[in-house]
């Protein structure tokens, strides 16, 4: 039977309408029509503006009558609209007093902040009509995807191996040989490769709708077009980027991205999104009015007493995350992605901003972070903080975690990089890092998997560049090499940039293997950067945020050139999956039946050299577990690292009764870094200069 609210009650500008419902915000399907709902606390008049798809001018503008407002929410049902041929926005009239924080402007058409489908940037890099009165255009999404029972994977955090990737960079190069380069569909074509590599989570750099043309400019010398390539500037929090979809031109990016998640899940790989809630694409007082500025500027943004924008993000404005309205928006958004897209986790860009009060001061118990930590819909989602911001708040180790949050561990990156290049005084640091950084996380009752361990990420050098450049080479960014960090802790192994010296090439390759060997035998949650496993380079550019060219695109030819490197990384990943001792998720975990949960060693077993000049450290990790056939077993792994420029003898700890040491990896062996036969080792071994050796103790036959 038909509902009695399925009939219109009024006629506005030729459209049949009735008063709507305030929830859910945004647009939703109701019998016979669409319900529109938008919030503004100080806006006095609101008008719903309706366009045909792609039209320059609206076909109808419907002022909300006074009785269509409930509290601060304007809501209306419009009947008989063709949802597929519809784009909608709002005009809000109210005071324009920037010094008091109000920037209402009824001449602007504002995008629905809850828009789930956004048109206007449908194909990557295609110049839009810059004169359009409504550039980013909200559309109606059905959200009726057929998941066929597919669910988020809920892999325990400590078992994850994360692969950080950029959707476009992964397959835009012709060398990717994908049918849909640079898109979600193209990335799906790479799933067999990623599954074979052995990673079980992919962390996607921003895929919320952003504008690649934001701050777009031409390089002053080369004339090359520069973009917002990375996408850390959100236009719409609820919409996947259309320009990343092979089907963006037909508005099917929602289905394409859901198909991506479904496909990754089928392969046993989680999907984690890098989300940017610290600021938006509206910039500061000189930036465009697209949405929040015109809806409720002083609610959504942190403003100085004079009405200027606080800039803790380094990008012009700062989202006012601990305002209750904004908090709800963020929560709505993450719930939507978790429930509707089956997203497995979120990595929060510049997350400390989410813990600042409306005036920028850090809060002891930030309500937003607490809400996210205890939310029922997000309860099995990974929450990962980038625990610093551009305003100088650095909270690695002290981020308000509520027992739930993990962190990008910047100290892990810095300690391991410095150890790798042979800096003195690092062995004590490394001991902390490989245990999951108990110095940072034990006191607050957190666990090793809190620590997302990484040596490289999108921000900074790739691994191949880390061992090939002493300094950044960011000329391609058009800022005179002034942008990007200078604290890279990198070492070029003897020549800056490409070198045909076989000795340098060999050392670089070994250093890359050393990095992977340490990363994949550390407790915590390891993260790799796309392409590092086969030596991807950005020619020394450590901040390629604006480059959309072969410089940033993954060159899949390197997979052939550096096949041996990739084979070792794959074997190290498999080794980590096979050895639960490397994934124990407790500091001071229980001893195994035979050995302590973790212990450190040097040239002499049980006696590491902690002195400042020491560049040798070995760690042994052990736990009880069940073998694949269900038998009780003891896992024992020993890792010896020598970052000195000379070889060093490591006497091995005595293997427990009935066990013998077997060598599995030796990065110092240029020909055979993987020891397929895993030969037995008795009392000790010589670890070559700048090398890592990995052994396991196996029961004697």
């Amino acid at each position, binding site marked *: 039977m038909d509902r009695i609210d399925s009939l219109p009650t009024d006629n506005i500008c030729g459209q049949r309408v009735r008063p709507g419902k305030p929830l859910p915000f945004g647009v939703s399907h109701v019998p016979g029509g669409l319900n529109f709902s938008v919030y503004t606390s100080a806006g006095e008049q609101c008008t719903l503006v309706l366009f045909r798809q792609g039209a320059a001018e609206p076909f109808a503008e419907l002022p909300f009558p006074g009785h269509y407002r409930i509290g601060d929410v304007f809501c209306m049902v419009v009947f008989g609209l*063709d*949802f*597929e*041929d519809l784009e909608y926005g709002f005009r809000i009239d109210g005071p324009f007093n920037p010094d008091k924080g109000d920037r209402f402007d009824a001449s602007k058409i504002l995008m629905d902040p809850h828009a789930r489908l956004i048109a206007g940037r449908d194909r990557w890099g295609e110049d839009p009509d810059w004169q359009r009165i409504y550039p980013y255009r909200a559309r109606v999404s*059905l959200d*009726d*995807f*057929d998941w066929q029972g597919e669910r988020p994977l809920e892999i325990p955090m400590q078992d994850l191996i994360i692969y950080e990737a950029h959707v476009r960079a992964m397959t835009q190069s012709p060398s990717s040989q994908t049918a*849909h380069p640079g*898109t*979600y*569909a193209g990335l*799906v074509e790479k799933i067999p490769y990623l599954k074979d590599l052995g990673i079980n989570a992919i962390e996607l750099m921003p895929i919320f709708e952003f504008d690649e043309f934001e701050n777009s400019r031409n390089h002053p010398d080369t004339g090359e077009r520069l973009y917002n390539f990375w996408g850390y500037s959100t236009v719409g929090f609820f919409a996947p980027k259309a320009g990343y979809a*092979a*089907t963006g031109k*037909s*508005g*099917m990016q929602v*289905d*394409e991205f*859901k*198909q991506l998640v*479904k496909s990754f899940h089928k392969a046993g790989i989680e999907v984690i999104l890098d989300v940017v809630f610290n600021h938006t694409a509206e910039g500061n007082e000189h930036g465009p009015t697209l949405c929040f500025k015109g809806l409720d500027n002083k609610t959504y943004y942190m403003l100085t007493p004079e009405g200027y924008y606080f800039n803790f993000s380094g990008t012009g404005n700062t989202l006012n995350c601990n305002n209750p309205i904004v908090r709800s928006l963020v929560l709505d958004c993450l719930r939507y992605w978790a429930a509707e897209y089956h997203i497995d986790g979120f990595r929060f860009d510049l997350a400390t901003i989410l813990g600042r009060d409306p005036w920028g001061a850090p809060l002891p118990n930030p309500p937003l972070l607490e809400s996210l930590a205890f939310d029922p819909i997000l309860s099995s989602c990974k929450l990962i903080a980038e625990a610093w911001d551009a305003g100088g708040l650095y909270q690695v180790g002290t981020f308000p975690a509520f027992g739930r949050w993990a962190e990008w561990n910047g100290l892990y990156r810095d300690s391991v990089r410095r150890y790798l290049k042979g800096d003195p005084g690092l062995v004590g640091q490394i001991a902390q890092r490989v245990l999951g950084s108990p110095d940072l996380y034990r006191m607050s009752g957190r666990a090793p998997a809190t620590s997302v361990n990484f040596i490289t990420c999108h921000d900074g050098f790739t691994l191949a560049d880390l061992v090939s450049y002493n300094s950044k080479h960011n000329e391609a960014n058009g800022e005179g090499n002034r942008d990007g960090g200078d604290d890279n802790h990198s070492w070029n192994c003897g020549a800056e940039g490409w070198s045909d010296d076989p000795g340098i090439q060999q050392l670089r390759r070994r250093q890359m293997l050393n990095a992977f060997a340490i990363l994949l035998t550390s407790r915590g949650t390891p993260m790799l950067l796309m392409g590092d496993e086969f030596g991807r380079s950005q020619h020394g550019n450590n901040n390629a945020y604006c480059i959309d060219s072969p410089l940033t695109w993954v060159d899949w030819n390197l997979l052939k050139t550096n096949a041996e490197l990739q084979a070792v990384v794959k074997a190290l990943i498999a080794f980590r999956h096979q050895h639960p001792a490397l994934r124990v998720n407790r500091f001071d975990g229980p001893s195994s039946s035979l050995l302590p949960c973790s212990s450190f060693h040097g040239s002499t077993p049980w006696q590491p050299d902690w002195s400042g000049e020491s560049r040798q450290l070995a760690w042994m990790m052990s736990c009880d577990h069940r073998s694949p056939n269900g038998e009780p077993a003891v896992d024992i792994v020993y890792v010896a690292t020598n970052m000195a420029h000379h070889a060093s003898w490591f006497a091995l700890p005595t293997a427990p009764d009935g066990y013998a040491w077997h060598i599995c990896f030796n990065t110092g062996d240029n020909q055979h870094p993987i020891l397929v036969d895993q030969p037995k080792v008795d009392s000790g071994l010589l670890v070559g200069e700048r090398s890592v050796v990995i052994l396991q103790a196996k029961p004697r036959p």
Partner: protein
Amino acid sequence: MQISKSTIHNWLVVHIEGQVDSKTSAQLNDYLAAELANDANIALDLRQVPFMSSAGLRTLLLLYRRVEALGFALALVGLAEDIADTMKVTGFYDFFIVLPDLDALQTAAGTT
């Protein structure tokens, strides 16, 4: 949009001409709903369909679910390359028996 029907190799074949989008999908939906009563495997002849929008693809999937619930098969015949590609990357494709032409119905008949 023009819709007609015929019977070929024990399939009820629904011939469609024109694009299927939110403006025409209701018409197609209503037509197909009536044909479900025929208790037969259904083939949609899409050789004369140049474009299907998101709403059009949803109509196909809904029909698939209904036919499946009745225990019959649904085949798509002569899909345009663009439409097939869109269906593949958005996940619609895998639900259907897809055939190049009407002749293929003869051998596909055994798949039910």
